[in-house]
């Protein structure tokens, strides 16, 4: 197993409070009375298909709103201060295809910086393309990128906004060993606080904290090794 990357010196912890949250869909609770404070630098969220991982991470940027209870990020309520929360939270989806909104990589990065001055935008866009090894692919159709490059682009267009909190929903599932590791390393070593839902237990083990969901209930929260062990037992 790979080692946990060191916490970068300029680390920030955004501070997340989930208080007695219930989420319902079609009259059925899909998260039940979840309370947790997340102050660890890197938190993994694990559990079976349908246990509520995606629902939980989507709470953190207001893509899903609680039916009861409340969620705050840096003291901001995801419901009341939705716009402010979204400016601080970057979200990475499983399928980069769902997240790349513009025809080419460079346009997609520019989209993230709407409102910034033109010169500043170009400077940051090219810097980011360079950092992620995408400079020579700036103008090709995004659909022509390889799977790994697509996920790099999706991540880049989130990181370029310099979020305080990075939330990712199974960002490495579609990738091979090398690409999964590269994306994993990028996520784990970014200065932003990280919450990542994942089926990849190696990735989970490299976090500082882990949460386990089972059928909408938070059943464990603690050291990754112990939580992963609990998950394996529950699957046996």
């Amino acid at each position, binding site marked *: 197993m790979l080692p946990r990357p060191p916490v970068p010196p300029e680390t920030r912890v955004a501070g997340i409070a989930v208080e007695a949250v219930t989420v319902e869909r079609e009259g059925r609770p899909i998260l039940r009375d979840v309370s947790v404070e997340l102050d660890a630098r890197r938190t993994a969220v694990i559990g079976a298909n349908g246990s509520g991982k995606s629902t939980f991470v989507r709470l953190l940027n207001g893509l899903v709103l609680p039916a009861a209870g409340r969620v705050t990020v840096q003291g901001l309520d995801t419901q009341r201060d939705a716009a402010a929360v979204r400016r601080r939270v970057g979200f990475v989806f499983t399928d980069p295809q769902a997240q790349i909104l*513009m*025809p*080419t990589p460079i346009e997609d990065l520019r989209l993230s910086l709407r409102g910034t001055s033109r010169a500043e935008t170009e400077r940051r866009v090219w810097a980011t393309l360079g950092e992620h090894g995408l400079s020579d692919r700036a103008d090709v*159709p*995004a*659909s*022509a*990128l*390889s*799977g790994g490059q697509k996920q790099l682009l999706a991540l880049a267009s989130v990181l370029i906004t310099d979020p305080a909190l990075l939330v990712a929903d199974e960002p490495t599932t579609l990738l091979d060993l090398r690409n999964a590791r590269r994306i994993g390393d990028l996520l784990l070593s970014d200065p932003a606080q990280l919450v990542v839902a994942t089926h990849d237990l190696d990735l989970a083990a490299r976090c500082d904290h882990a949460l386990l969901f089972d059928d909408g209930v938070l059943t464990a929260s603690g050291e990754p090794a112990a939580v992963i062990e609990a998950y394996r037992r529950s699957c046996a």
Partner: protein
Amino acid sequence: MARQNDLGRDLARIAVFAALIVVLGMVTLPLPGGVPITAQTLGVMLAGAVLDPRRAPLAVLLVLVLAALGLPVLAGGRGGLGVFVGPTAGYLLGWVIGAVLIGLLVRGHRISWWRTALATVVGGILVVYLFGIPVQALVLGLDLQTAAASSLVFLPGDLLKAAAATALVLALRRAYPPAFGRAGIDAPASARAA
């Protein structure tokens, strides 16, 4: 073999555009004359511009068959054979012919904005009105001038849809070139872009 692969993808693309037209039917504004303003014409224009002149009308026909089967696939959740004796019947026929024409006008050329705009205006508006207005007049018992005048309410919306279709087609060409050609069409879609 190669031909079979193409057939499979043909069917799937026809089905996709039919589904798109159906979904766009949820954006609609019923009007007193019985002919609604509907985003489905945008779907017809897109089908015509993206598919070829053989497949585009099939996508539209597919929607009409679904409607004939009684499924609520037309604007405002309408369907059933009644539609084909109603005031919109001519427009529906116009969609089929218009899709062919758009395909013919854009096919075999490099996609340019003016050609796409021309095709969507001619095939997606003129032709549709050409078939739609007379039938509407007939069914509602109006004279032709009145029917034509009353359908002027559609024009601003339809011009907007033609503009949108043009912009979307151009963006699609940059975002996903394989959408248009058969180049590399027998490769896995996932791999083609991988």
